[in-house]
């Protein structure tokens, strides 16, 4: 029975996809007015309960029409994604497939109903603690090794890919999937870049019919980023703390224009390798010693240091990493090590959609006296409860920063 219903829904979606224009728009002017929607609802009620003979809209049409009237002012929606591509929609998205797990997280912040998602990347399925509700969803593989058959057989109406990450792979995925099913629409969002984060959340809010949720989420986000920016913008360049950032590979730092460099900047720090033209250069330990940073930030969560995060409650590993840095030869002369300002942070809260939580941590570490009121941990907890809708207590679970 459910199979037949699904089939019906699918074929209707297919028909709807072919028929351009807003459903239940009787006069065909691409605007669904209140009287048009009212007529459609009445016709449908008439047909269902009163034995009316007027040709009534299908349940799917009616549902979509109500959505469009409610969220898009009864008109088609034209949006521009982060790759600059413009798409016009005359139907809401009901079967969403995402290769981009960061966009899934952002959509969850906007209150997306999980049953609108039909396929996710393998990274989502590998993270049952953070994505419990998606564990039974179809596995699309990764952007580098996509499972095209799976992606096509779940019949998505929209596929989400990264906008500026692994561009050539994403372009290939788009080309191949389009040749299998020309009806699929493609959207490119990053959902982890500070520069486009707010704009993307707004656009996605509109696209998903979650404008109000988007506004609420963005005000929460702006509250954090604005607080940090308001304080650090007033700090003159010469008074800024110098920061050495190291990724999970020893001595692999962040150069000019890299994501981590940007976040140090946002938190008011001065990256000691910020002028290095290589995005993620491997630096000479001597250079770190001679540049003598005030603060050292080490990122864990991948490579040899793949621990911590949501699924790891053992906090001792962070402590070990911190101690190892202090024990590097001659590093005890570095101001940061001498002053005990070596901090460990997990990539989950600095590299992805939760970057603003990590930025808040960085700001507090850089200028503890200026941010006495800022509580990054509380921000994190609020994000998880209120926006990610997760029953997750940071006091009991997870390892994200050291010293905590």
């Amino acid at each position, binding site marked *: 029975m459910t199979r037949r219903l*699904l*089939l019906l829904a699918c074929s209707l979606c297919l028909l709807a996809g072919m028929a351009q224009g807003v459903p239940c728009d009787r006069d065909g002017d691409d605007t669904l007015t209140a009287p048009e929607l009212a007529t459609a609802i009445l016709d449908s009620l008439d047909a269902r309960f009163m034995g009316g003979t007027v040709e009534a809209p299908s349940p799917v049409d009616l549902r979509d029409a109500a959505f469009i009237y409610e969220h898009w002012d009864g008109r088609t929606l034209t949006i521009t994604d982060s790759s600059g591509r413009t798409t016009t929609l005359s139907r809401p998205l009901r079967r969403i497939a995402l290769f981009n797990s960061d966009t899934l997280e952002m959509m969850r912040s906007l209150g997306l109903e999980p049953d609108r998602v039909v396929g996710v990347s393998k990274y989502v399925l590998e993270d049952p603690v953070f994505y419990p509700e998606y564990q039974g969803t179809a596995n699309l593989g990764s952007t*580098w*090794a996509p499972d095209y058959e799976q992606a096509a057989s779940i019949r998505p109406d929209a596929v989400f890919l990264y906008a500026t990450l692994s561009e*050539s792979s994403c372009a290939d995925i788009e080309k191949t999937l389009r*040749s299998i099913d020309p009806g699929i629409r493609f959207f490119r969002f990053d959902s982890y870049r500070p520069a486009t984060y707010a704009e993307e959340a707004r656009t996605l809010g509109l696209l998903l019919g979650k404008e109000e949720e988007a506004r609420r989420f963005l005000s929460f986000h702006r509250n954090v980023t604005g607080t940090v920016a308001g304080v650090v913008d007033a700090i003159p360049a010469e008074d800024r703390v110098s920061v050495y950032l190291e990724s999970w590979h020893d001595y692999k730092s962040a150069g000019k224009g890299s994501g981590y460099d940007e976040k140090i900047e946002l938190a008011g720090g001065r990256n000691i390798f910020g002028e290095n033209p290589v*995005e993620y250069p491997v630096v000479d330990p001597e250079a770190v010693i001679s540049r003598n940073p005030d603060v050292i930030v080490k990122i864990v969560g991948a490579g040899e240091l793949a621990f911590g995060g949501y699924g790891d409650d053992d906090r001792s590993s962070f402590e070990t990493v911190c101690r190892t840095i202090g024990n590097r030869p001659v590093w005890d002369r570095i101001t940061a090590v001498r002053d005990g300002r070596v901090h460990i942070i997990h990539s989950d809260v600095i590299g992805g959609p939760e970057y603003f939580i990590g930025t808040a941590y960085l700001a507090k570490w850089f200028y503890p006296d200026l941010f006495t009121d800022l509580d990054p941990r509380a921000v994190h907890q609020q994000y998880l409860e209120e926006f990610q809708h997760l029953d997750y207590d940071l006091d009991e679970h997870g390892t994200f920063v050291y010293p905590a």
Partner: protein
Amino acid sequence: MMTDFGREEYARLAEKRALFITGLILVLAALTGIAVTIGSAGLSVADSYIAILAGLFPGAVDLPDRMVESNAVGIVWGWRLHRVLFAIVAGFGLAIAGTVMQGVLRNPLASPFTLGIASAASCGASVAIILGAGFLSGYLVIGNAFLFAMLAAGAIYGMARLKGMGSETMILAGIALMYLFSAVTSFLQYLGTSEKVQEVVFWMFGSLDKSSWPKLGLVTVVVVAVVPLLLWRAWDLNALAEGDETAKSLGVPVERSMAGFMLAASLVTAVIICFTGTIGFIGLVAPHITRMVIGADHRTLIPASGLVGAVILLGADCLARTVIPGAIIPVGIMTAFLGIPFFVYLFMRRRDA
């Protein structure tokens, strides 16, 4: 008496060759039949074939609802079929290219890898992926991979043609080129972000994921154009295999035909690996396997090793798509897993004999 004996031997050999080639064609056909039914969409065998028919005769086949629901026709025609055919053509092309290279250079180690062509293609792809620079906008990776591969081939061709370089020197030059291009690739990886590096690594694994009908068409045209040429000149290859002096005394213009063969083989290799990434291993193994079975006469060796290459690549791709459900292991890796043990086994057996 002696001549009669030789004739009998030859007749037996010819029979063996015919048997081998027929066998290969049958195996290839069977594999193709299986390959189109394999995939993570979980279409049944019957549905896969109905989908093929439905695509061939649009409107004539009444599709069951379940197939409309799962987009079976789209999946089979938009994805599986061209991938399967691409595996056949690519395996065929890479194997004959390897056969020709080994024949011309009289060296069992000659292959797109040892001549630097594969690493040049990787280098070109890295330039496109990491620096975003290239010659063919819209097709940066493919264009760069092809151009760099042809650049390496051209360098070897030039050295052979202008300096009259011998086969050993050519292989040395090829290996030197390989190290040079690998160093450039490594340097680019050093510069790149981890995502881009991963993209390069995945490209270098070699995979059929990027196949499509237009690409299949292009590769087929090149392979179909080159193979008859090679078969036509197969006697020259046989003569060259006996040594430069022998070839010369038989009237083969040694330098010119060597260079010509190298160019043809490189072109085929470059056209294939620019789409797939480096699956160069087939070019090394297929000719050896074939030579062990049917001998070194290039008139039959070329088509037969082409078939062996097609069987290996298609077989490897079938396994690559099924070993881990829902994931596709890059076929370049699978070919090595599959081909090398078999290759070693053949060698060991021959030693014993």
